[in-house]
């Protein structure tokens, strides 16, 4: 016989953490409101009784009309679980007790889990569990993430509560647990006073002690410091990503070429053509994509998760809200753009944090207008080309060039978003309500694991599945000839007239087309098409083509991984196609304009 247990609680009280600790599941948890949307389920066994648990979405009340609240209310009404566990935030009792009082009124077997006790103690609170148990007429179990036994106690309390459930009466086991719970945790006697006020009760439980948190928001949202801090932090993350990735990328590349030698020896039995197909085509492209993509992502995402865990990201979204609101969007889009700098595919997935459907779609379609770090190496090389490479002055000038690129990209993103919201995605300005969780000390080990597994490896997995076949296609194209001339050169020649209008060359445009699997491949591909593999890429450019290539690098179709992700997120062919065409159109228009301007100035001299 099994006992059914439902877990309810406000968003962001660590409910998923408690649930995972009890059931051994690995749900994504984070310091961000609304992580759990569909009810997750799990199970555990205690004293030969099986417990089936359901994690309801985070809610503030059963009476509200949001999808989460309806899911939770419907579940409780239709399934009537044997035991209902409500998870409270010990540091925010006033807010979380409201739900507990509501649930108390509708369910006879309530177990209260007072979570985040460690944090409450650090803040100088000592919640009176006995008083709370008395008021709620339910066992209260304090839990803390740093002590495993506290979860064991919660399991026991649930088992004990289940014994009094009509459905479970007569079940085996559970009797032994009684002595292990202190009287206070067993719940007091007497009726729950009608009309208990959450605020008054919270104050009574905490003996009138009020939390005095250091008011960090005075600084982070202050008049003068807010924007400099925001920009400095974002710049530091981007800088560390671009700079810090060089060395590990080089090491990985060296490692892969050593592996290639070993593979070459291993495949020596194969015919020469086939061996080259695997090594120079499939293997080389895949290895290159991993070597250039893995280090920046392995640096960027943990850093970004660190800001997330600290609670800084909601503040960033808040600061960014004003300019985005003017464009019919909201500050959360700014966060998606930042994630897009790490990888556009992750940025597109990140758009889930935008609640309004039309705003979310606009953010997805415009995400590729922000250069991902796969495009940074190209931009850095072009910065050197346009502004000269020697002298310390030019280093500053190059940084200025990159900054100009980012500013242009943000301006175009905002402009395009505004255009979309006034045309195809027109709609009323959505409400913007953003909860600012208290700053929390991040847990580094878990953070690293999560950002590496959840984001980095998943994106890398998707990238590799595209890179391998793309490597094969590129290898074939490189070997094929058309009436004596190599196919690639012929294609490049064919594209030349059109590319010239954009201020590009056929070679560069073809390289853009072939680097669809990964933007990092642009320069190596351009060199391969020009027949100067391993040569100096600067030879491919003049000032005009360098400027136009920079513009086209910023604005063209998203890479295949991102397109695949847009499809996953929208499940719509129309919007996926739009996500390809929109940045391409922007790039073509801007390149035409830049090219015309340059031609005009060159003619007038």
């Amino acid at each position, binding site marked *: 016989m099994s006992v059914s247990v439902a877990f309810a609680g406000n968003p962001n009280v660590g409910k998923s953490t408690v649930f995972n600790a009890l059931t051994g599941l690995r749900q994504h948890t984070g310091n961000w409101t609304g992580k759990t949307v569909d009810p997750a389920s799990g199970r555990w066994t205690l004293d030969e009784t099986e417990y089936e648990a359901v994690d309801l979405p985070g809610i503030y009340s059963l009476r509200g*009309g949001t999808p989460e609240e309806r899911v939770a209310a419907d579940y409780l009404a239709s399934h009537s679980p044997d035991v209902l566990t409500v998870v409270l935030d010990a540091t925010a*009792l006033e807010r979380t007790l409201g739900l507990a009082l509501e649930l108390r009124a509708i369910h006879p077997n309530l177990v209260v889990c007072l979570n985040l006790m460690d944090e409450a103690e650090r803040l100088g609170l000592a919640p009176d569990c006995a008083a709370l148990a008395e008021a709620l007429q339910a066992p209260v179990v304090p839990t803390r993430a740093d002590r495993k036994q506290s979860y064991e106690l919660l399991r026991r309390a649930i088992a004990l509560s289940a014994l009094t459930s009509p459905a479970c009466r007569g079940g085996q086991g559970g009797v032994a647990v009684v002595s292990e719970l202190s009287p206070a945790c067993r719940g007091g006697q007497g009726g729950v006073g009608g009309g208990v006020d959450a605020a008054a009760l919270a104050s009574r439980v905490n003996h009138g002690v009020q*939390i005095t948190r250091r008011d960090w928001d005075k600084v982070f949202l202050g008049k003068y410091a*807010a924007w400099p801090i925001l920009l400095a932090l974002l710049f530091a993350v981007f800088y560390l990503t671009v700079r810090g990735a060089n060395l590990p990328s080089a090491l990985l590349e060296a490692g892969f070429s050593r592996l290639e030698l070993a593979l070459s020896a291993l495949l020596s039995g194969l015919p020469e053509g086939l061996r080259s197909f695997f090594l120079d085509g499939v293997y080389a492209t895949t290895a290159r994509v991993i070597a250039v993509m893995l280090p920046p992502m392995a640096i960027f995402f943990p850093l970004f998760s660190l800001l997330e865990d600290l609670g800084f990201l909601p503040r960033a979204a*808040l600061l960014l809200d*004003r300019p985005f*609101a003017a464009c019919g969007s909201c500050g959360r889009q700014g966060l998606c753009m930042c994630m897009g700098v790490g990888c556009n595919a992750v940025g597109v997935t990140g758009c889930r944090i935008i609640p309004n459907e039309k705003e979310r779609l606009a953010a997805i379609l415009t995400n590729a207008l922000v250069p991902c770090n796969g495009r940074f190496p190209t931009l850095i090389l072009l910065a050197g080309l346009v502004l000269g490479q020697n002298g310390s002055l030019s280093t500053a000038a190059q940084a200025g060039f990159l900054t100009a690129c980012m500013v242009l990209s943000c301006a175009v993103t905002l402009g395009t978003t505004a255009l979309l919201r006034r045309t195809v995605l027109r709609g009323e300005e959505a*409400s913007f309500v953003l909860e*600012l969780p208290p700053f929390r000390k991040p847990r580094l080990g878990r953070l690293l694991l999560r950002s590496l597994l959840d984001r980095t490896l998943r994106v890398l997995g998707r990238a590799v599945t595209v890179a391998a076949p793309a490597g094969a296609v590129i290898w074939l194209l490189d070997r094929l000839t058309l009436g004596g001339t190599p196919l690639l050169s012929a294609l490049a020649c064919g594209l030349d007239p059109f590319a010239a209008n954009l201020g590009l060359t056929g070679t560069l445009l073809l390289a853009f087309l072939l680097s669809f699997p990964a933007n990092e491949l642009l320069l190596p591909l351009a060199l391969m098409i020009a027949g100067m593999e391993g040569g100096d890429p600067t030879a491919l450019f003049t000032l005009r083509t360098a400027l136009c290539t920079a513009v086209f690098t910023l604005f063209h179709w998203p890479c295949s991984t991102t397109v695949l992700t847009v499809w996953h997120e929208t499940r719509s062919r129309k919007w996926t196609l739009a996500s390809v065409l929109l940045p391409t159109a922007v790039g073509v228009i801007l390149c035409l304009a830049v090219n015309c301007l340059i031609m005009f100035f060159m003619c007038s001299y």
Partner: protein
Amino acid sequence: MAFTLDRLRAGERRTVVCIALSPERAASLTRLGLGVGTEILCLRRTPLGDPTVYRFRGTDVAIRRRDAAGIQLAGKR
């Protein structure tokens, strides 16, 4: 003219008497526990003037002026 939340100054505390917003707009606020009778404190305006950070039921929440204008408070300005 009613005294609405957007006119609450930083540091002032009042009680909500009426939420005059469309159901969808009101939902995002009631979900966080803001209802008639809730006491709300204006914490600070952000550097660009909008949104504003409020505190109710022990939680800090940022609300845009447009939404705040639909929340009526007790008393007079």
